[in-house]
């Protein structure tokens, strides 16, 4: 992509953001009435929807039940019209399966599964529009949905993607920046304890820069946490007012 500068000389990116700025995040909890918990998040142009069912009895084979914890079951799927080119299969291909595994791993670590032995918690995430940072939007949406469902967690799980161009870490990549092929790091963090739930990196990055990128990513996750916290508090206030308490 000759001529497309991901970072201009003045420090502005393609969409006018600075290197450490996040895209605009708008979120809403309680979108669907029938599910136990649901949330919708828009990070720039990426739109993700998460729905949580549970905890409920294990569906299917009883042998999957764990005697001391709940089973966390995830599915990640992208709508066929979400990407620029139409996707043939919404889920079931390798990349979606990998994302599903990552989501499952992230939330198994964060949810207090010991409180619900022999039960199952379903987390279904749908991408309605993909413009970079798919995994991160999913994690943020799922965090809100789990909170909406009232399932206890250790902490918020906030995720953000980071890239690295010309010695500067770029935070919250959009699709064009991701497709440019530079190194990308996706980080899912529990903000209060600074524990990393999932760390995933692609493409080449020199070891010396790793610390810088990790720092930038952690800071970005904390910023995301601030936004999500605001959303949750507003929602709770709204619900309480409607309930008349």
């Amino acid at each position, binding site marked *: 992509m000759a001529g497309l500068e991901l970072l201009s000389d003045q420090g502005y990116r393609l969409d006018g953001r600075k290197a450490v700025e996040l895209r605009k995040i708008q979120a809403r909890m309680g979108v669907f009435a029938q599910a136990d918990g649901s949330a919708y998040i828009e990070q720039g142009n990426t739109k993700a929807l998460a729905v949580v069912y549970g905890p409920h009895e294990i569906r299917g084979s009883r042998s999957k039940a764990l005697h001391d914890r709940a089973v966390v079951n995830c599915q990640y799927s992208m709508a066929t019209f979400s990407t620029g080119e139409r996707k043939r299969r919404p889920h079931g291909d390798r990349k979606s399966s990998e994302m599903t595994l990552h989501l499952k791993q992230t939330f198994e670590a964060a949810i207090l599964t010991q409180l619900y032995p022999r039960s199952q918690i379903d987390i279904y995430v749908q991408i309605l529009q993909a413009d970079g940072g798919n995994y991160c939007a999913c994690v943020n949406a799922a965090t809100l949905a789990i909170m909406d469902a009232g399932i206890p967690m250790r902490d918020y799980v906030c995720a953000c993607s980071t890239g690295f161009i010309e010695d500067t870490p770029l935070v919250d990549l959009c699709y064009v920046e991701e497709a440019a092929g530079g190194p990308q790091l996706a980080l899912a963090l529990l903000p209060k304890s600074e524990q990393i739930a999932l760390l995933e990196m692609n493409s080449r990055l020199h070891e010396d820069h790793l610390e810088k990128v*990790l720092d930038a990513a952690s800071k970005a996750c904390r910023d995301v946490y601030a936004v999500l916290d605001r959303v949750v508090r507003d929602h709770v206030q709204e619900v309480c007012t409607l309930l008349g308490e």
Partner: protein
Amino acid sequence: MREPPLSNCEKSFLLKAIREGKRLDGRETYDYRNIKISFGTDYGCCIVELGRTRVLGQVSCELVPPKVNRPTEGIIFFNLELSPMASPAFELGRQSELLIKLNRLLERCLRNSKCIDTESLCVVAGEKVWQVRVDLHLLNHEGNIIDAASIAAIVALSHFRRHDVSIQGDEVTVYTPEEREPVPLSIHHMPICVSFAFFQQGTYLLVDPSDREERVLDGMLVIAMNKHREICTIQSSGGIMLLKEQVLRCSKIAGVKVTEITELIQKALENDKKIRKEGGKCGFVESMPQQWITAFKVEKAPVDVTDVEEKAEGILSRAEPPAEAVSKPVLWATGTAQIGEGLESSWRDMEEEEGQVEDEDDEGAIDDPTLAVTQNIEMEDISGKEEKKSDVDVVVLSDSEEEEVIILEPEESRIHTRSKHPADSSATKTTAGKKKRKKKFAL
């Protein structure tokens, strides 16, 4: 077939050893097992042995039309197969989570890091490009598949030679190896995966976990680096929480390891090149010394055995001598005799709910020989102690589908018969005549 689960005492043994900084095969925490690389007769075929884990890598190529959105680039395709040969737990044809995880990790490590120059694979832009296919087969699973697979993939790719191609105008000629020397692929760098296993919520760290260690780990971190200390991929898995310092430390260790392994790979490749140039025999058959006495030699595991004897003697001296187990046979009738007394029937006690007495867990079993209690007074103490432990419920030993799991404990009758192995984990208790307790049985 499901693989047999690891027993509790093995698990605790492994964890305890790791806490003391010891590993089963005597390695240090940051040591790799021995890596052995052997090549086949064809170019692009190699077997990598990491300890006992074996991966076979084979590279092949063919001319195909390129992808529509990338007309000037070749195609590289990776495929890792977990063959049932490797472990009875792998079944043919079923896409398990592990397979997807490994395949995606390999793809990201080798393809996204652009270790192979795909533009050089282009023959006629938009019409014909080389499609390079790397097939990896796991032959034996003894832990740490991903490291061995990544080494096998990169070695096979470095070893591979593709047919030479020449273009005159519109005509494309592909030369066979007899006509012209085959051409190696252009490889920018060699990314190698290094796996780190975390135990006890991230307190202990091991490099290159073996099969047993993999089963007790909490989480894993895989870092793929090349010798220029560029990180190609990082992937954390398992449900553990990491801290930034841990990740940075791991990346430093990975840097050191990758340099060593890359040297090894270069040496192996040069060796093979030398042998082929001199016209010597090469191939798998050659790399397996058949007729020598040392063909089936197993290397000694470097376990520290300096004071084993004193320790063993110490344990034995502290233990009580085995009780008189043999009693006189009692003759009931001709042809029917009884030796010793059988265990008291405890079936009728299964319905009793109160006063659960639990079999002592294996935790402390290694240290204390037994809690051989012979007197009623002491028995009360024990049952008191165990009643506190009865908050912890049944210990599941297997993924059986049964609802109730019961733990068998060998009862000690009035003649206290001890189990044969002094270091056994079962605690023995006497049965008081009238006192009823609920016993739990395990299968």
